[in-house]
């Protein structure tokens, strides 16, 4: 078991560094840092994000020293998870049914992204106007 700086990636924040531990093929990360980046905290009720809690029977994903086994977390909540212990990188996505449910509502999800000067731009800041979202790329 080795203490390590681990990069945790998700779509909202990109790659962020966290204190963690590498144990063979397992990667564990600091629970507080994990909560700050993903919103998920282990409480008495189970894994909770905002008002939503998912009961969990098996609490072994959380190690004794307050670290979270990222693959174990992903398996417990059926969330897409990639763990590369060799590179000390972990990444989390969102479940397909969660995304599909949002798409089915027809509501436009809000988001914040930087402009080319690095200034954050929030979609909802446009307010009551018609909006054309254009996804493009240089490639």
């Amino acid at each position, binding site marked *: 078991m080795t203490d390590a700086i681990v990069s945790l990636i998700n779509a*909202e924040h990109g790659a962020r560094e966290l204190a963690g531990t590498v144990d063979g093929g397992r990667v564990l990360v600091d629970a507080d840092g994990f909560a700050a980046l993903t919103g998920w905290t282990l409480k008495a009720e189970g894994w909770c994000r905002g008002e939503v809690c998912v009961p969990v029977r098996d609490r072994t994903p959380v190690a004794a020293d307050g670290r979270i086994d990222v693959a174990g977390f992903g398996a417990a909540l059926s969330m*897409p998870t990639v763990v590369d212990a060799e590179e000390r990188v972990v990444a989390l996505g969102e479940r397909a049914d969660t995304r599909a449910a949002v798409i089915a509502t027809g509501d436009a999800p809000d988001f914040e992204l930087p402009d080319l000067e690095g200034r954050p*731009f929030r979609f909802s800041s446009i307010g009551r106007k018609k*909006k*054309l979202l254009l996804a*493009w790329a240089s490639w």
Partner: protein
Amino acid sequence: MVVAVAFDDSVDAAREWVDAADPRPEYAVLLDREHLLGELYGIVNVPTVVWVDEDDRIVRPPVVAPGDDLFKDFTHIDSNVHHDQLRAWVREGTLPPQSDREHPVVPTEEEQVARVERSVGAHLARVGRRHAAERHFARAAELAPMNWTIRRGTLPLRGEDPFGSPFFAFVAEWEAAGSPGYGSADPNAPR
């Protein structure tokens, strides 16, 4: 109001196109290294547009809509069709008739894992771990073989030409599969 979101890895890659545009865009041009918009709106190809009304409702789900006819010989999409549809919506509030070819792409579990694999690959490529990145890009392509933002979008990060032979091999694969994905804004285009 237009919001242009670049599925690119660097400001420089996006800026080259913004600087070359005439007239220069006065609307917001944003950088989306993690393909957050793809995740939130189910976008699998570019250029794609989504129409959102004053109440933040999606009135037109993602469709492919090139801004000009530079690649018309290849796509058979007439860019004027989308421009006319857009003017009618902005001026009169009319939406184009729902085309059979337009349908939202609902993400699968495999596609969701593929997006995560792509983001790990992109991170590793950025920090110079190209060999390690390749494993994740390959896995992403296996899981979401018809997703352009993964198959074509990773080519620059893999050191490949996005107009080179891997791209044309992908297009042949995509066409052989029946050109899956959402349609284009032009109902007369073959795909």
